[in-house]
């Protein structure tokens, strides 16, 4: 009976679309619930605040997506963020006497360079020395954090340049219209560039190929070591950028900034549907995952749930997302 078959096909198609949209649906449901449960959720001010908060995790998650796509992992994002942040802060601070204060733009470039170098070291050791990514980045987590503390002597760097703070606290105002906070604009810009790199350039295809099957990628002439080196360097750069934004937003270079941020970044990527074994996953999913986690965090804050339970909640979400992925791929088999 052709009618039945086509309706079967229809319903399968419907289920597939539903599966593809699962994060978006979850996001909408949570937003609807929060706007009914709390008074302040559905206000422009709060929504912009949520966006501003997620932009830091968003930048980390973009880098993490690249890395997880190659089948690796980066546990050192929080520490690299802190290092990039304090290096920039030290150059724009009037109180920090050990280094001269310079033009904020140059200071930001130095901070970004510091983060990129750390990420590049990750990439170099992983691709050349064949050290397991999680061991290497676990070591870097500790090293970069130690460097941050030694650099700052464990004290926050305050009294930052006023124009520098604009990048974290100011608004993007084209033609006098107050549009979006700068961190959000920078995050969206970075996301757009990452999308182009991943889906409209050779490099992106190679990233997917390396994660899908490193050996066949090598045989088809891809320089696997270089791709792996690059994704870690990119992650380092984005971490430092996030560190700069966070420093400007909080008006201080905090050596303890970004502790356990790697959890949020991994969670966003995994929720977004990127496979932990690499080679599979949409970048747009990461964007939704980042927003989902941001909304949940802000919602739990507004429902005044203690921060420990927020951690538990995040842990369950990560494990749940991976399990869902498992059941789905099981169904495909």
């Amino acid at each position, binding site marked *: 009976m052709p009618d039945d078959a086509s309706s079967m096909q229809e319903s399968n198609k419907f289920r597939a679309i539903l599966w593809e949209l699962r994060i978006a649906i979850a996001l909408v449901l949570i937003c609807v619930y929060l706007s009914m449960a709390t008074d302040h959720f559905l206000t422009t001010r709060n929504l912009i605040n949520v966006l501003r908060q997620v932009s830091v995790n968003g930048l980390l998650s973009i880098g993490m997506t690249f890395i997880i796509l190659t089948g690796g992992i980066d546990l050192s994002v929080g520490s690299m963020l802190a290092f990039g942040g304090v290096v920039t802060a030290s150059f724009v601070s009037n109180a920090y006497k050990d280094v001269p204060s310079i033009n904020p733009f140059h200071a930001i470039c130095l901070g970004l360079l510091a983060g990129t170098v750390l990420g590049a070291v990750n990439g170099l050791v992983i691709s050349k020395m064949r050290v*397991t990514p999680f*061991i290497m980045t676990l070591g870097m987590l*500790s090293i970069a954090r130690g460097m941050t503390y030694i650099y700052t002597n464990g004290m926050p760097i305050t009294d930052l340049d006023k124009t520098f703070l604009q990048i974290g606290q100011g608004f993007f105002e084209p033609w006098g219209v107050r549009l979006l906070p700068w961190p959000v604009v920078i995050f969206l810009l970075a996301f757009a560039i990452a999308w182009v790199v991943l889906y409209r350039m050779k490099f992106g295809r190679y990233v997917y190929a390396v994660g899908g099957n490193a050996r066949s990628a090598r045989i088809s002439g891809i320089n696997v070591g270089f791709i792996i080196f690059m994704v870690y360097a990119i992650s380092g750069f984005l971490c430092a950028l996030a560190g700069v934004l966070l420093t400007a937003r909080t008006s201080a270079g905090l050596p303890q900034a970004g502790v356990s941020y790697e*959890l949020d970044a991994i969670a966003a990527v995994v929720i977004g549907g990127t496979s932990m074994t690499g080679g599979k996953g949409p970048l747009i999913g990461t964007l939704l995952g980042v927003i989902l986690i941001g909304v949940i965090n802000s919602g739990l804050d507004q429902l005044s749930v203690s921060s420990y339970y927020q951690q538990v909640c995040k*842990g*369950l979400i990560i494990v749940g997302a991976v399990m869902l992925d498992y059941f789905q791929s099981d169904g495909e088999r």
Partner: protein
Amino acid sequence: MPEKIQRRWPIDMDSMILAGILVAILAFMGFALGDSFFNIRNISSMVSQIPEFAFLAMGMGVAMITGGIDLSNVAAMNLSGIVLALCLTSSRLAGGVGIWGAILIGAVSALLVGVACGVFNGLSISRFGIPPIIATLGSMLFFSGLGVGITNGEGITGLPEQFTRLINMTIVELPPPFLFMLAVFVVMSILAPRLTTGKTLYMYGSSRVAALFTGLRIGKSLALGYALSGLFAAVSALILVGRTNSIKVGYGDTYQLQAILVVVLGGVNPDGGKGKFGNILVAVLILQILQNAFTLFMFTPYAKKLIWGGMLLAFMVVRTLLEKWSDRRKIRARMAQMAEGA
């Protein structure tokens, strides 16, 4: 046979390097610090600090031999320590079964909690195919969240002194936890490569696919392996609670990185399949002596972090280079043979 698998990495190379490092460090300490290091008080304080960490490292070793990792074992240690402390401080329990009964019940339930944590990890890894790093990262949050839920994040103190005295007494100048730790290390290094479960885990670590096709009971073995890791975490909780006379979520957080460092230092391959418990013990001793030296030299805690991370990486890099070098030597020997044959 796992014996054969291990032999690919020259058996005594790791042990010899480690023993060499240990002797060199001891000699350096004797030279640089002399009596301020080699005195009874310093050594006995080190001996009392080693066991709780050694058990965590052993659990981590089991997980890493399977090619996995257990990021949740410090959280599991805290959770079982909390259960123990609750049993010990409950006046109703002590009134019902006496203080020794309460200690027994507390210890048993702490061990059960540890095993349950481990089984939870093992099942989520083997049944649901969650990568170990994600599964244990999630369960770490989960366990410490449970701990906070039970205690509200506050510490539990005021344990009965019978318990602390039991943990801190000495037999011939050595505390019982230390002797127990030595015994467990001996048992583990003898049994792990010989029991079926141990062999299965070594094989699973060295090649997942091959192990699947040989029809080994991987799910069961993995659950047992992680349960063992949880059990060790609980033992370490007993020692920690006895030694510090209190427990709180967040105790021993720094052990997590150090446990991984020690296991890697002890020659366990993070990709799985290789590793000996005797070497882990030597690595634990090395780390403890260095820790002690940093304190005596009065390093800042910030520098410590840097040094641990640097050591972890340096050791991994040296190992890889050595492995590459020995591979190259093998190939060269083979080529020489072939040339002779021709």
